[in-house]
């Protein structure tokens, strides 16, 4: 099974638009949106026949006011500043609680409950480009890394059932928990960057992360013509670090017009951007070994 992950470091470089086009061009694949926080690929792929499953992960502390004797032990022990006290009334801020159970364990009067934490939903759907696994966390939730790992597991199971040999995943911006969870063990990471100071800075950090986990990586420079000096610096960096340069794409509002039409750029009216992107996809798919 091959697994190709599209990431970027910086947000807004074009990950999802490009992944949607790759989903259109790829064959025998499961599409996976690993951006569980602010997912967008469903806006283009319009999933149907969606099966929805609740994602429960960890627990959260809730103080029972009838039992609480206001001793302040929980406030003293919480490392996350999640315990609020107001005139001897103690409560937990769910946005700050990490579900560590320390307050529950050390409360001398057992006044703190520890119910399951419902973090969001994950979905298995059909799309015009093939089956799709995706999710949506509830706002403000954590554990996105665990949900990302779960989606990858479900995508592999689905590919196994259907006899498909490629998982094509759209990742999240950043280099933290969800990105690390999406990266471990993939066949290839494709980094979509842009020739701006922030695009280059963030690409270097996410490329370093790929190196940290020994993941082969290649680079696409989107909007390369915005600043050819920055683009050249990115190319030089890639060559020095031994990353494959898959190609450059121009700054072109056609990508937004396709998005508004809920189409992948390669489905949208005849355009040069799509032709160049198709060439890039052919190159990407050649770098991963065929599955026997």
């Amino acid at each position, binding site marked *: 099974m091959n697994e190709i992950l599209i990431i*970027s*470091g*910086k*947000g*807004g*470089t074009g990950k*999802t638009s490009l992944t949607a086009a790759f989903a259109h061009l790829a064959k025998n694949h499961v599409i996976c949106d690993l951006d569980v*926080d*602010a997912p*967008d690929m469903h*806006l283009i792929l319009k999933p149907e026949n969606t099966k929805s499953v609740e994602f429960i992960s*960890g*627990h959260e502390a809730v103080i029972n006011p009838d039992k609480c004797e206001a001793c302040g032990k929980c406030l003293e*022990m919480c*490392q*996350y*500043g999640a315990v609020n006290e107001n005139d001897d009334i103690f409560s937990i801020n769910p*946005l*700050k609680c*990490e*579900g*560590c*159970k*320390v307050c529950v*364990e*050390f409360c001398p009067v057992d006044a703190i409950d520890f119910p399951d934490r419902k973090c969001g939903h994950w979905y298995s759907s059909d799309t015009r480009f093939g089956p799709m696994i995706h999710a949506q*966390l509830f*706002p*403000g*939730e*954590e554990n*996105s*890394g665990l949900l990302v790992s779960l989606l990858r597991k479900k995508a592999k199971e689905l590919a196994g059932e259907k006899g498909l040999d490629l998982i094509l995943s759209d990742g999240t*911006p*950043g*280099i*933290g*928990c969800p*990105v*690390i*969870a999406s990266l471990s063990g993939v066949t290839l990471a494709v980094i979509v960057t*842009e*020739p*701006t*100071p*922030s695009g280059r*800075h*963030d690409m270097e*950090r996410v490329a370093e*992360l790929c190196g*940290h986990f020994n993941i082969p990586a290649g680079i696409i420079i989107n*909007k390369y013509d*915005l*600043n050819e000096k*920055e683009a050249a610096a990115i190319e030089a960096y890639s060559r020095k670090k031994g990353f494959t340069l898959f190609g450059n794409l121009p*700054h072109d*509002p056609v990508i*937004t017009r396709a*998005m*508004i039409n809920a189409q992948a750029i390669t489905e949208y009216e005849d355009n040069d951007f799509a032709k160049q992107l198709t060439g890039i996809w052919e190159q990407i798919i050649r770098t991963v070994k065929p599955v026997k």
Partner: protein
Amino acid sequence: MKIAVASGKGGTGKTTVSSSLVSVWESPVIALDLDVEEPNLHLFLNPEFTDKRMANMEIPKIDDALCSKCGQCGELCQFKAISLMGEVLMTFPEMCHGCGGCIAICPEGALTKDFRELGEITWGKNGKNEFLMGRLRVGEAMSPPLMRAVKEKLGEMLDASSTDVIPKDVIIDAPPGVSCPAINAVMDSDLIILVTEPTPFGFYDMKLAHEAFLPMGKPMGVVINRAGLGNSEVYDYCNEVKLEIFAEIPYDRKIAEAYANGDVISESSDEMKQIFISLADKVKEKAGSNASQGGAA
């Protein structure tokens, strides 16, 4: 007052808005980059860094001579970071959330504090302003603990300037998304600016961000970047839910090129400067009644 610049979708222009607001703000501010995974604000403001310190998380260290293999630490740990495997107690430092529960519960005193490096906190001067940022160590998964450490430093900086004639305002460049790092970045602010673009992705993610931040009850407004590029969904939504549009930045290739060149957009033309001066006035007016005066973070 503290102003958070957030977005939902990445790449909509948070750093463009933050750096420009810092540039046009009349009184001294602390420019704070809380996007610790991918901090960018310094690339545009070019501050002079004066000092730094490492941020660490407290994790357990085992003294095998004292450990009685009772396993209470592993039973309490919710993150599988410490576990009794047969007769061997093992720690998995990367999984640890630093809650301190295992150290507190150990009846033998066999666990002591060790540290995991989260990243670096750096600060300095930027003209009349101060600058502060966190930078997550590559390979570290958890950004909220580093963000908490950066906010502690912010508290120190605000305390140090508490005798200033004019209390320092704080302009926060937040990470993208609407999960815990984004919430952590905006939760202590007096006003949230949502930066979006008028495209289907921009609209969908702005709506998520608006819904995520709404329960905090803070004043919120929208900056529409690349206005004229896409469709009307963002405008229709703002109209429907009475979410004020604070400013619009036109879609213009010249602006994208200026950004690519590392320029602060408000300094790129008179027209842009005026847009951000009006935005700053609007923000002060809306946050004013809700604002905290200096003090703790």
